[in-house]
């Protein structure tokens, strides 16, 4: 019996390994192939192109080593202006969107029908397309404000909201906050409803007013939500692109060019593919540091739950 069994087992072990590889191919490779095609391979090619001088069309690429990077760091003013814009935008966006969405979440965290309808209202701008968002706000800042200016005479409506750098900056913050508040609100509510009600009641019995009860009891307990929202809004700010491309297109006078949009323009408007890929690598390094922290914090939170 033993003699018979042994060779069979050896054979099946080998067969099993082959079968596992087949399973890997059936289960994993199709999905992997899509991701490789759409993102991983282009990502690696980006690294490759960053050491060439290339206009994106011609067949011959000139190897320039780290020259693209040197130029970016020494003489590319527009790139660093776009960093300055992006950092300023991120600063205001993170503070405003988190403050407003947390306040809304606190007011709408009760489980009744009013609160549910309210939540849905705040969430709706988050699910409509960028084209719609940009057309809606073009309409408001254009014909709607013009008409209000004529009837009221208030200079607020007569200002050139998309024509002056500072005003366009404010408009951008307002639109992105309006669009995204619902997303952060939902994440804050998820944290708030997980806080046992007894805790807040105990704080009240102990004589804490609502302001104090919130900061001393509630806030520490919803820290996981706070960190998720904070870091998500931070990376949103750094990666700001879509609304710039669709809405302001970087204007007026290039005052709203974000880093991501600067890279896009370098590639597709100026046809400097080499420089654009090099810029994108610097951008990636920065984003990876931020998302690295984000991942770590989110993972920690999973354990705590």
């Amino acid at each position, binding site marked *: 019996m033993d003699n018979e069994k042994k060779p069979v087992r050896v054979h099946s072990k080998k067969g099993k390994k082959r079968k596992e590889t087949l399973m*890997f191919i*059936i*289960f*994993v490779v*199709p*999905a*992997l192939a*899509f991701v490789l*095609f*759409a*993102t*991983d*391979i*282009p*990502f690696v090619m*980006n690294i490759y192109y960053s050491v060439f001088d290339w206009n*994106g069309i011609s067949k011959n690429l000139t190897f320039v080593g780290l020259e693209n990077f040197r130029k970016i760091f020494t003489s590319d003013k527009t790139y660093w202006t776009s960093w300055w814009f992006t950092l300023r935008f991120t600063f205001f966006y993170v503070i405003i969107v988190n403050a407003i969405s947390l306040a*809304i979440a606190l*007011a*709408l965290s009760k489980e*009744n029908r*009013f609160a549910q309808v*309210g939540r*849905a209202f705040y*969430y*709706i701008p988050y*699910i*409509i*397309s960028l*084209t*719609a968002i*940009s*057309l*809606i706000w*073009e309409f*408001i800042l254009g*014909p709607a404000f*013009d008409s209000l200016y004529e009837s009221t005479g208030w200079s607020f409506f007569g200002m050139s909201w998309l024509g002056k750098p500072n005003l366009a900056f404010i408009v951008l913050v307002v639109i992105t906050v*309006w669009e995204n508040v619902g*997303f952060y609100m*939902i*994440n804050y509510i998820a944290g708030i409803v997980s806080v046992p009600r007894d805790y807040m009641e105990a704080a009240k019995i102990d004589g804490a007013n609502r302001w104090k009860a919130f900061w001393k009891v509630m806030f520490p307990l919803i820290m996981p939500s706070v960190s998720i*929202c904070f870091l*998500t809004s931070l990376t949103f700010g750094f*990666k700001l*692109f*879509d609304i710039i*491309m*669709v809405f302001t297109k970087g204007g007026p006078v290039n005052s709203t060019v974000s880093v*991501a949009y600067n*890279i896009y323009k370098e*590639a597709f408007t100026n046809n400097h*593919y080499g420089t654009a890929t090099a810029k*994108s690598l610097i951008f*990636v390094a920065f*984003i990876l540091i931020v*998302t690295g922290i*984000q*991942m770590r914090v*989110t993972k920690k939170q999973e354990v705590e739950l």
Partner: protein
Amino acid sequence: MERSRLTKGTVITLIISILWLFPLILIFINSFKSDSEILNHFLELPKKLDFSYYAETWTKFGFPKLIANTLLYTVCTVLIVVLLAPLAAYYLERHKKERRCRIAFSLIILPIMVPFQSYMISLTRILGNIGLNNTKTGYILVSAGLCMPLAVFMIHGYINTIPIELEESAYIDGAGKVRTYFSIVLPLLVPILTTVVVLDALATWNDVITNQLVVGSNEAAINMQNALYMKFSAQTSDWSHALPGTVMSMVPSLIFFIFMQKYIISGATSGAVKG
């Protein structure tokens, strides 16, 4: 049962929530008006529900074709993702100690961490080289490829919470891996798959950036949002057509939101890592 007692704060927040939707309401009421009516009476309700601007926009900008394209993209993207992502997520979760699985998983979730701008440039080059730029096929492949990472990541996390014992008893009963997957695992994944379907359907329906990059202005392959963007976004003055167009492009998302609210909102919290 909790009493639905409304505090002052809640009432104020509810009133503001209506203001929050005011931009949308404004677009809606003005979509029935002529250009001069819009300019002179934009805050008033339309005198009558005049659908002629909708009808004009519908034919003038070829909405049937745009809807057909956008629907095709949404259905194909969702089908590809919902078919392939759980397969990969399941295998990668259950074999996470193997090296090839760790490598494959890292490759799949890499795009969640790196920004789109770090691969879009070469992606358009690749599509050009293999003749897929400006085509429907090219767009569908890219769209599915971009939706895949987060889908795999979310399903992977979900499978982590499903006890392995169920599958083991199926193995003991002699079922192979493929059969175990389809008869035991897949039915358990329905909640997370619903969330994935809803999120990716909305993302594909609303997409403008990827369509713009892959098909540009090719009339045959353009989707609805990109078409509206190309026609109206350059400081339009043709509001009597732009507004009905905007409303028509939003209505499907809004109806979808009303029915799928629960899944959309649960998707917002489980996909929070993406940013």
